[in-house]
């Protein structure tokens, strides 16, 4: 039987890893132009804008680049991986630990990403994944 401590560490490791992949998936998603909803113009304006936003999102997912699809596949694949691990191994799910670790992984990589975006960290030239897909097309125009 697995001790609770080991169970916690393994579940936390999985949560952390899925948090990292979630952060990468979000970063490779194309960004929409931001817009503000003017509630003074009435309910119809709100509905029209909501419809337009939904259409834009649908179109974005349909025409998205391969990197978005890779990210989404990796994310859903890891969720399936976790389910399989829980079936095959004697581990038991610990939701609070899993969610906390997921947030920790996500926030850590988000912080790294923001620092890299600000130019405070630069990627080593010998990176095995040093040629990521072109990102200029997913930059927010706003």
């Amino acid at each position, binding site marked *: 039987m697995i001790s609770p401590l080991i169970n916690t560490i393994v579940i936390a490791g999985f949560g952390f890893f899925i948090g990292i992949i979630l952060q990468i998936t979000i*970063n490779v998603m194309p960004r929409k132009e931001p817009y503000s909803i003017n509630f003074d113009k009435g309910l119809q304006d709100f509905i029209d804008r909501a419809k337009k936003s939904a259409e834009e999102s649908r179109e974005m997912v349909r025409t998205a680049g391969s990197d978005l699809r890779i990210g989404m596949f*990796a994310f859903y694949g890891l969720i399936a991986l976790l389910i399989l691990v829980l079936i095959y191994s004697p581990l038991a799910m610990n939701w609070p630990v899993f969610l906390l670790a997921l947030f920790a992984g996500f926030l850590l990589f988000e912080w*790294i990403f923001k620092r*890299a975006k600000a130019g405070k*960290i630069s990627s080593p030239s010998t990176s*095995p994944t040093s*040629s990521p897909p072109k990102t200029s097309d997913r930059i927010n125009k706003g």
Partner: protein
Amino acid sequence: MSIIGYPLGILIGIITGYVFMLFFQTMIANSRVKFSTLMKVSAQLLAMPTFWFGGPWVTTQLLQSVDLAESLPGYLISLTLTFLLVVSWPLGRFVISVGNQIGEAQRRKK
């Protein structure tokens, strides 16, 4: 508790960590990934738990004298930590690389 679980976990963690990064690199390197390739890679990704908890190495002659139930805690903990260590560093460099590109492009626009 049997100590064989620790080196075994480290070994399997290194192997599967590098295999995962190989999948990831293959996907990144191809600018146009076909749906069939994605499905193939996903299937390989999903085969990892069966390798972790019941791969062909479990039934080898060498491990027949080992009590697997006793070495399981050590195996699990070292497998998780090694896998995370092997995978986190290249993924971190990838995120830094993407962040640098986006930051540079945004600065050029301004």
